[in-house]
């Protein structure tokens, strides 16, 4: 039941989004772990919203905190222009 949704009539694919941190059993998101963070922070520097990434509320909060710390440590940009 948790499998990705099949292609439907309308033509677009809707997939069941699962929180990546839950499925990988990550309990603490480290702000130094840029590899993980950059997956949720595209070029522009904004944090991907939950509705797009499918992250659960708990992990999104942790992620946001980690990204903000990482920005402070110059691991991630605040903005890009």
């Amino acid at each position, binding site marked *: *039941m*948790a499998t990705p949704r099949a292609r*439907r*009539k*309308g033509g677009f694919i809707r997939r069941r989004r699962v929180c990546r941190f839950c499925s990988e*059993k990550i*309990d*603490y998101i480290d*702000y*130094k772990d840029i590899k993980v963070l950059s997956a949720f922070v595209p070029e522009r520097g904004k944090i991907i919203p939950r509705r797009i990434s499918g992250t659960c509320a708990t992990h999104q909060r942790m992620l946001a905190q980690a990204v903000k*710390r990482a*920005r*402070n*440590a*110059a*691991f*991630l*940009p*605040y903005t890009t222009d």
Partner: protein
Amino acid sequence: MRVYELLFIVMPTEADEAVDALIEQLRGVAEERGASVTKIDKMGRRRLAYEIRVSPTTYTDGNYVVLTIEGSGSEIAELERRLRVTESVIRHITIRIDEDLKRAEKFKAKRAARLAAGGGRRRDRGSAGPAEVFVEAADDATTEDEEEVS
């Protein structure tokens, strides 16, 4: 007992020996106050995500060091003051991590307990099947409607 993570960025122009000396100095300050440095992580030179300007020079690279400190919390003020005063440090952050780690520990225990009880949750979701099917059917209906309109 509190656990802190002290991250600081040293100017890339600074020699490795000078960085080691600074780490030792900070360790001395911490231990003097009854705290202990449990981990020293020299992440080394890496590119900054944005330029950091310190008076005349603009830095694009930095030498990252992370110290993990266990203590009462009273030593942090002095450590931070030292970092602020030290000219070769261009950025520093202190983060208290014991509460987050404790929380992570709790999650882990919860998951272990659930697994021991026969991995309950997944099955619960399975029994909620009919509702999901109903939503799907409704979705299909709307798409068909749209097609009729066009």
